[in-house]
């Protein structure tokens, strides 16, 4: 039986989430290898725009309008629609490994007993089942695993798959949400914005990260200035976040954000494994550190031994002067 692969896509600020373009590409490629079919589902209070965007990646998109999502967490409603589609013949469900994605995945696995492959960096179809590759143990090993059941759930790690449009625009089929969610709803009382980056860490082309070497909240001014000169956003290592110099939302690493920018420039970051997991796939990595033995040297394309408080301002000035 050829597989029917369903991509569960998410909506972020009214549009298709970037991770969902990656998951869609992943699923589409997998379905092609397996000789099966692929479709996507978006469940939202207003799915139209995102569904249209998803149609650039998939031949068929089911857009479910669930008004409750305006004031509730989406996972319970998404789960109901996914189960509906499973009843209609879906054999494999692919989700982005986001917080909501994992919630849906977990509940789905609980109810179906299907196998679960988590945090795929890539996958291929082999015989009757997908074989996925994932890095585990804080990046110390790469594991290959496969499903032993005919059906299963896979989550895709952010910033691992390069999203690519399909070439043809798919069909969007509109539906209404069907009945009560099978798992309890959670009410959203308020959505609070706290002045985050205009561009998110994951979307940024350039990320400039400050680490323990920055030394203080005030020290981050140097990091911000260099980010500004490069047109990038500021990130942080866990040491800087734990020290209270910068909010957790800026943290790059295993327990923070995974980023894959064109340029990752670190200042005073030692490069512990849990941090490298968050940025080691960046296209170009430049690191500035006083310590020539910093682990960051292992992944940096250019490792600069120096004091960040001297090098960063000098670099910012150099970049600005070249621009003019």
């Amino acid at each position, binding site marked *: 039986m050829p597989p029917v692969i369903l991509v569960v896509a998410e909506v972020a600020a009214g549009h298709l989430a970037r991770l969902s373009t990656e998951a869609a590409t992943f699923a589409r490629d997998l379905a092609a290898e397996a000789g099966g079919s692929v479709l996507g589902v978006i469940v939202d209070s207003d799915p139209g725009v995102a569904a249209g965007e998803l149609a650039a990646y998939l031949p068929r998109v089911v857009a479910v309008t669930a008004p409750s999502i305006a004031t509730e967490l989406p996972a319970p409603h998404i789960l109901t629609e996914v189960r509906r589609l499973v009843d209609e013949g879906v054999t494999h469900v692919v989700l982005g490994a986001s917080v909501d994605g994992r919630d849906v995945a977990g509940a789905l696995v*609980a109810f179906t007993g299907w196998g679960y492959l988590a945090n795929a960096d890539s996958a291929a179809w082999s015989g009757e089942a997908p074989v996925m590759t994932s*890095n585990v143990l804080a990046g110390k090993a790469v*594991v*290959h695993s496969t499903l032993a059941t005919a059906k299963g759930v896979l989550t895709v790690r952010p910033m691992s798959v390069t999203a690519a449009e399909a070439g043809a625009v798919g069909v969007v089929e509109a539906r209404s949400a069907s009945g009560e969610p099978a*798992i309890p709803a959670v009410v959203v009382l308020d959505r609070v914005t706290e002045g985050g980056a205009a561009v998110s860490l994951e979307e940024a082309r350039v990320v400039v990260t400050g680490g323990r070497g920055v030394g203080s909240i005030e020290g981050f001014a140097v990091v911000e200035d260099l980010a500004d000169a490069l047109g990038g956003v500021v990130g942080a290592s866990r040491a800087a976040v734990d020290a209270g110099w910068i909010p957790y939302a800026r943290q790059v690493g295993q327990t923070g954000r995974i980023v894959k920018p064109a340029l990752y420039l670190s200042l005073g970051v030692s490069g512990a494994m849990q941090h490298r997991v968050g940025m080691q796939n960046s296209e170009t990595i430049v690191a500035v550190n006083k310590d*020539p033995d910093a682990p960051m040297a292992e992944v940096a394309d250019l490792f*600069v031994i120096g004091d960040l408080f001297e090098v960063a301002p000098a670099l910012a000035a150099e970049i600005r002067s070249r621009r003019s």
Partner: protein
Amino acid sequence: MRILVLAKPVPDTAVAAERMGADMRVDRTAAPNVVNGNDEYALEAALQLVEAHGGEVAILTMAPANGVETMRKALAMGAMRGVLVTDEALAGADVPTTIRALAAAAKTEEFDLLLTGLFTSDGGGGAVAAGVAALLGLPMLSGAAHIDPDPAAGRVKVRRLTDNGYDLVEAPMPAVISGTQALGTPRYPSLKGIMAARSRSIRQLSLADLGPDIAPADGAWTSTVLGFDPPPARTAGRVVNLPADAAAREIADFLADRRII
């Protein structure tokens, strides 16, 4: 308040203690194991909540028999009791089995909140909490940065981090909550905690204690590990050791070469 914390012993990534057995499973009997980092934050949050609201924290873990040692570490932080689900038949259990086993074990406890970390450092699946919540029919509040229960009203509010702030969500208790390091730095166990932990009770549950239909009847897991590889090596880069102005020019040239500026 009664808070149950789901904690998983994992190899201590800091000391590279992971060992792969010949059967392609992480050798979890190899010491030292530590409480999964994210679960420690959840445990810290739980301890702070009972300090504020009264009550006690219990730990629920599924692990080989040596899970007792890692549990003692959690007890030393201040949890009062432990429940250890351990059975040879559960070695290498897949995620659906783990979810069923933990849900069945959680049913033997009374709790207002079930807290856990967002994902584990050794497999990172992150779906177990949601799976357990689904089987228990409880609301799932994931990604918590701040937990604010109202025991009198029987409801809990949680701040879920978003890209540029947070959502304030609410659900009735009992509820399942997962969170990350934003919940607060885990305390070091005090010496009194360490001493007290030695005599706190750990109740052990075997597969038979959990009821029927937990592990697959034919003993076959739903997913298989085919093998492990070392991570892909990145080619070594250039090292620059120059005064700041010269270094800045080197970097700028390098970036220009790569068309970044």
